[in-house]
């Protein structure tokens, strides 16, 4: 049957710069490039190109660029070329369309409609290079009141377990299996150096990561892969994953070909079998059931570790967050619809969930209204792109943020959205040994550390400009935000005034 699909990208090669050195051919796992010595040129199979930009980066003479395939649509905004191609693909294969990374639809990005404040004259700004600027954050439950013995300078209330972050950023859950062990190791090394945490995702805890256990958050998700008493007790905190921003309401599916010996041992499942995480936890059908799981995990770890509950940003997220807090969660993670994934059905990724900005604002507001905001920590996730996004998230009410896509981009990811093929040219979303070794964890960790350190400097600069010297004073400080180009309804939900007000 003739395949009606056409290429998405066109490899543009500058003949004046190409030396036929063959680096592109050797670096492409999709076999796009071929050095044709006979013809004296390098050819490209455009159909196979996924625009990962590995060759563009590696080419010693910068002779390469990836362009859009020049085919135009018919001018209809309804039957777009992408729409036609999706139908062609499904007519060919009869399958569910698979996609990766976060929601790419052109919905409003509210971060870009929120402006930050700065001090002038009164309440002067602070120079972070000259004065201390606190970015440390503690995550976990907080007691309703704190009893202090003022004579001894001691705290008398028994504090619940908390984790300490030196920077208000953690690395979100990405399992070994969905990403390579080298990628996870790079994040673990970076977390340790930065004084923050990485999350194992639902893929078990690989034995080689033991040295980083104090900086690990282990995840318990619906498939319960790799969960054991040792697993729970080895890490600094535990996270129950109820949902993921990129694919709320559905589970996960790691195909059997990615379950090699190491993944199999770490996940505690047979080699070569599909790892299927059910859509719901089959033992959680109510907040009371969630409470049971939270307290089972707390019992298993003798109440020494905070338990987080991660939920996807969906329509009634505020009520679910409130229920989770009342069920005993110490940390609530809200994951917006632009959050990434290694694989999700395209229709789910593109159509389910809501933006993190609105979800975060409404969760924070709801918890405050109910008087329970101060008893839990709130973490925002789902496409934090820069330090300015972090400042906005914290001003909207988050204690800290999770980043994953940005950390992967630091490792080399170019968001080509082809993770599910398992042929990641950057050694991130793959288990093929010859591709995995492309990511040297030491090099990767250094890049991630550089990124987060740079962000932390920028956060300090922005806080200093606002006249704030501790990130705790920024949390929920929505007066530091002003909306631009937003409707009254949007401003009400975000709880911010319009610029000029």
């Amino acid at each position, binding site marked *: 049957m003739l395949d009606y699909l056409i290429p998405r990208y066109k490899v543009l090669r500058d003949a004046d710069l190409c*030396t*036929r*050195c063959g*680096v592109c051919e*050797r670096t492409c796992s999709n076999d796009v490039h071929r050095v044709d010595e006979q013809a004296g040129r390098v050819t490209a199979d455009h159909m196979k190109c996924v625009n990962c930009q590995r060759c563009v980066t*590696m080419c*010693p003479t910068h002779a390469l660029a990836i362009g859009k395939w020049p085919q135009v649509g018919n001018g209809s905004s309804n039957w777009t070329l992408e729409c036609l191609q999706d139908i062609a693909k499904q007519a060919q294969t009869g399958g569910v369309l698979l996609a990766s990374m976060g929601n790419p639809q052109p919905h409003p990005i509210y971060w870009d409609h929120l402006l930050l404040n700065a001090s002038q004259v009164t309440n002067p700004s602070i120079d972070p290079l000259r004065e201390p600027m606190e970015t440390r954050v503690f995550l976990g439950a907080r007691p309703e009141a704190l009893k202090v013995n003022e004579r001894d300078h001691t705290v008398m209330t028994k504090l619940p377990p908390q984790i300490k972050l030196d920077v208000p950023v953690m690395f979100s859950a990405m399992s070994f299996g969905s990403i390579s062990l080298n990628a996870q190791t790079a994040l673990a090394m970076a977390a340790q150096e930065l004084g923050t945490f990485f999350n194992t995702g639902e893929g078990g805890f690989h034995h080689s990561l033991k040295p980083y256990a104090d900086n690990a958050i282990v995840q318990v998700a619906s498939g319960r892969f790799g969960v054991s008493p040792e697993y729970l007790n080895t890490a600094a905190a535990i996270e129950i994953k109820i949902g993921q921003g990129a694919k709320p309401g559905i589970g996960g599916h790691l195909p059997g070909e990615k379950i090699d010996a190491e993944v199999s041992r770490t996940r505690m499942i047979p080699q070569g079998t599909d790892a299927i995480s059910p859509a719901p936890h089959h033992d959680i059908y109510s907040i009371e059931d969630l409470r049971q799981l939270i307290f089972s995990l707390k019992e298993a770890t003798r109440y020494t570790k905070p338990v987080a509950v991660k939920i996807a940003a969906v329509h009634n997220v505020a009520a679910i967050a409130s229920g989770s807090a009342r069920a005993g969660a110490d940390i609530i993670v809200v994951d917006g619809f632009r959050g990434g994934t290694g694989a999700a059905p395209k229709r789910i990724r593109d159509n389910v969930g809501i933006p993190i900005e609105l979800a975060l604002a409404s969760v924070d507001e709801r918890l405050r209204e109910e008087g329970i905001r101060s008893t839990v920590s709130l973490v925002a996730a789902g496409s934090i792109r820069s330090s300015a996004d972090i400042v906005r998230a914290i001003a909207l009410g988050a204690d800290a943020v999770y980043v994953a896509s940005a950390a992967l981009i630091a490792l080399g990811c170019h968001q080509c959205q082809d993770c599910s093929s398992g042929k990641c040219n950057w050694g991130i979303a793959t288990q093929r040994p010859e591709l995995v070794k*492309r990511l040297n964890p*030491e090099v990767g960790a250094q890049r991630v550390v550089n990124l987060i350190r740079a962000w932390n400097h920028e956060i300090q600069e922005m806080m200093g400009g606002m006249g704030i010297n501790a990130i705790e004073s920024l949390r929920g400080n929505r007066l530091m935000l002003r909306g631009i180009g937003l409707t009254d309804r949007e401003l009400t939900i975000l709880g911010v005034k319009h610029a000029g007000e």
Partner: protein
Amino acid sequence: MKRIYAIEAWCLGCKRCEIACKTQHSATRDTVKALTQEQPSPTSRVQVEGDRFLSLAVNCRHCAQPKCVKGCISGAMQKDPASGLVTSDPAKCVGCRTCVSMCPFGCVQVVSVEGRDIALKCDLCTEDGCIPGEPACVAACPNGALVYWESEE
């Protein structure tokens, strides 16, 4: 002295090191001209052996007691006592290939330059125009598979 070490675990076989070496040892120091126009075309002194599954960038070890120097019949191959650098003087080299047969790592090549065979090997980019402290191959490696580290002796 500082030596280049090849870490097999991280070598991808992309051969960017070879291209950087060719550029560094070309007349124009321009990658496009060096690889497409220059005659004779420059020779890489680092050789990537293996395939995309297992590879290694083989390079001169600048040995403490270099056999190539010991075997050289013309005095072209010399180890600098101060820097530890082993180099071959093209003016003195007679192209006898004794160094090639003596080197346990296969890191000396004999190429024809202006009708005369001479030995070529890694000079740690000590010719002028180099990046101080970082040989071109190390700078070009995308994955830390070539490192320039201080070593004992």
